[in-house]
């Protein structure tokens, strides 16, 4: 086995970058919730880092990447046994298998963490701990195997997902939708005012996500080379384009370009370019970014129309953004960026690739939604998913964690004086 020290060094750094995305996500979400729930949000994200770190090493890595099964891996590398062997189908990698395992661990951490944006403000901490642990095993592991592992059925089919548009984002988005349908609406939604308590936190989190995402996407080249450079530039370009497209959409629709919109647009662009960053050209990434900025901005209105309380728009940003990016590869994919990729409709490749992408998206979304829905129903019966109404009014911080984020908690909803009414533009 030949290891390249440059490749190895880059993937180790990339893994650390991806880890930082989860605290970044915690702040992105934490700023958007009300001040009485910010610690609850941060805690659910942070605890996920603990849970997945232990479970991944213990057996979930093996389930996702070991063996020749089409639907799920095996336990050959349980407890990191045989970790000197490369994951099945990754024999040509120039980095040690343990580095690949560590890099993939960070993806497994942020995927369940993304779901907390849907269930915000009303889920028990204990229920989250159990839910995220079981979800990792029965949803994340098989889906990662289908798409990322060369043994997986969607990989064999020819579906392309460079860094996790289906595995991470569409998967988490579909799961969030299922979970909020079981959990029910936050008390008072949509009548009561629930404005973000700290938009600067949201921007801080979006900045950390953008930074960490270079590890996520450029690291997914699994080497330090021209392909990783394409992924890097495409990621940055699409993100910039999506940011601009989102605030322009807002400006036209609402009359204002908002800070929250700029942060949301950037994240929507990052999501949409994730599956495509190693398969499209930089000009193609601008098209993906613009599509993500406009469509995800409009998609955040779906929850008001269909009355599901996806608190922080995991559906609008991650489900829709992930699906969009995965499908647009079918149009914009080009072998000039990646000879291991495929040409899409616009590059003379015909409709085959788009067909494969559609199958992958449909399979992942359907599986994730159905299994998550059943899991949430069972956990709700067994232990109860939701905090009591009294605790919900007091806020997660005080009722679950016996802490408060801010000295004067009466200001936690913005201001004790500023009573208001709420209406939706969507």
């Amino acid at each position, binding site marked *: 086995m030949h290891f390249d020290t440059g490749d190895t060094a880059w993937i180790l750094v990339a893994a650390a970058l991806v880890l930082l995305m989860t605290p970044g996500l915690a702040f992105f979400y934490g700023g958007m919730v009300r001040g009485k729930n910010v610690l609850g949000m941060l805690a659910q994200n942070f605890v996920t880092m603990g849970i997945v770190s232990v479970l991944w090493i213990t057996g979930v890595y093996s389930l996702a990447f070991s063996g020749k099964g089409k639907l799920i891996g095996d336990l050959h590398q349980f407890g990191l046994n045989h970790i000197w062997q490369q994951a099945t189908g990754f024999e040509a990698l120039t980095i040690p298998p343990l580095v690949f395992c560590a890099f993939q661990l960070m993806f497994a951490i942020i995927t369940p963490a993304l779901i907390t944006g849907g269930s915000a403000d009303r889920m028990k901490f204990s229920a989250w701990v159990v839910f995220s642990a079981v979800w990792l095993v029965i949803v994340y592991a098989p889906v990662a195997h289908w798409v990322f592992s060369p043994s997986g059925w969607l990989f064999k089919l020819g579906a392309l997902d460079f860094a996790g548009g289906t595995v991470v984002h569409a998967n988490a988005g579909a799961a969030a939708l299922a979970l909020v349908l079981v959990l029910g609406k936050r008390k008072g939604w949509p009548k009561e005012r629930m*404005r973000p308590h700290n938009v600067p936190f949201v921007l801080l989190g979006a900045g950390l996500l953008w930074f960490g995402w270079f590890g996520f996407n450029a690291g997914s080249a699994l080497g330090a080379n021209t392909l990783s450079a394409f992924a890097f530039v495409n990621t940055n370009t699409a993100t910039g384009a999506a940011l601009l497209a989102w605030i322009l959409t807002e400006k036209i629709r609402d009359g204002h370009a908002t800070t929250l919109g700029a942060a949301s647009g950037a994240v929507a662009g990052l999501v949409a370019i994730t599956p495509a960053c190693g398969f499209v050209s930089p000009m193609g990434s601008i098209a993906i970014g613009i599509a993500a900025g406009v469509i995800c901005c409009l998609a955040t209105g779906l929850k008001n129309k269909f009355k599901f309380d996806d608190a922080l728009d995991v559906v609008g940003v991650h489900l829709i953004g992930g699906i969009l990016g995965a499908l647009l590869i079918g149009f914009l994919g080009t072998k000039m960026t990646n000879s291991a990729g495929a040409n899409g409709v616009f590059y003379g490749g015909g409709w085959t690739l788009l067909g494969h992408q559609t199958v992958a998206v449909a399979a992942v979304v359907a599986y994730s939604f159905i299994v998550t829905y059943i899991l949430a129903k069972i956990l709700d019966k067994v232990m109860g998913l939701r905090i009591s109404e009294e605790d919900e009014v007091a806020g997660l911080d005080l009722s679950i964690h016996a802490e408060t984020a801010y000295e004067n908690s009466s200001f936690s909803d913005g201001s004790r004086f500023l009573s208001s*009414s709420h209406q939706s533009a969507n």
Partner: protein
Amino acid sequence: MKLITAIIKPFKLDDIKSALQAYGITGMTVSEASGFGRQRGHTEVYRGAEYTVDLVPKVRLEVLVDSPEAEAVIDLIVKAASTGSIGDGKVWSTPVDQVVRVRTGERGSDAI
């Protein structure tokens, strides 16, 4: 003795304070307040969802004065607080029965 209370636009506080200091007022109390009069609140937009805030942030300013000075002080505040637009606020005075300076126990006008 009179208590003069003024509800003003927050950005006018410095002008009023300077005017009152120049006049020779030795103390005042300032607090943040919210309310509405003829001025409407404002609208905030988060991801397309509009939140209408009915109450407008204001500053509440209180000054204790000897009765003969009250009209002059009110005039000073009104002049300094005025921008001519809706939401400039209100100023009123109320009679005060007794004032005590806590440190010395002085009472009445001596305590002002």
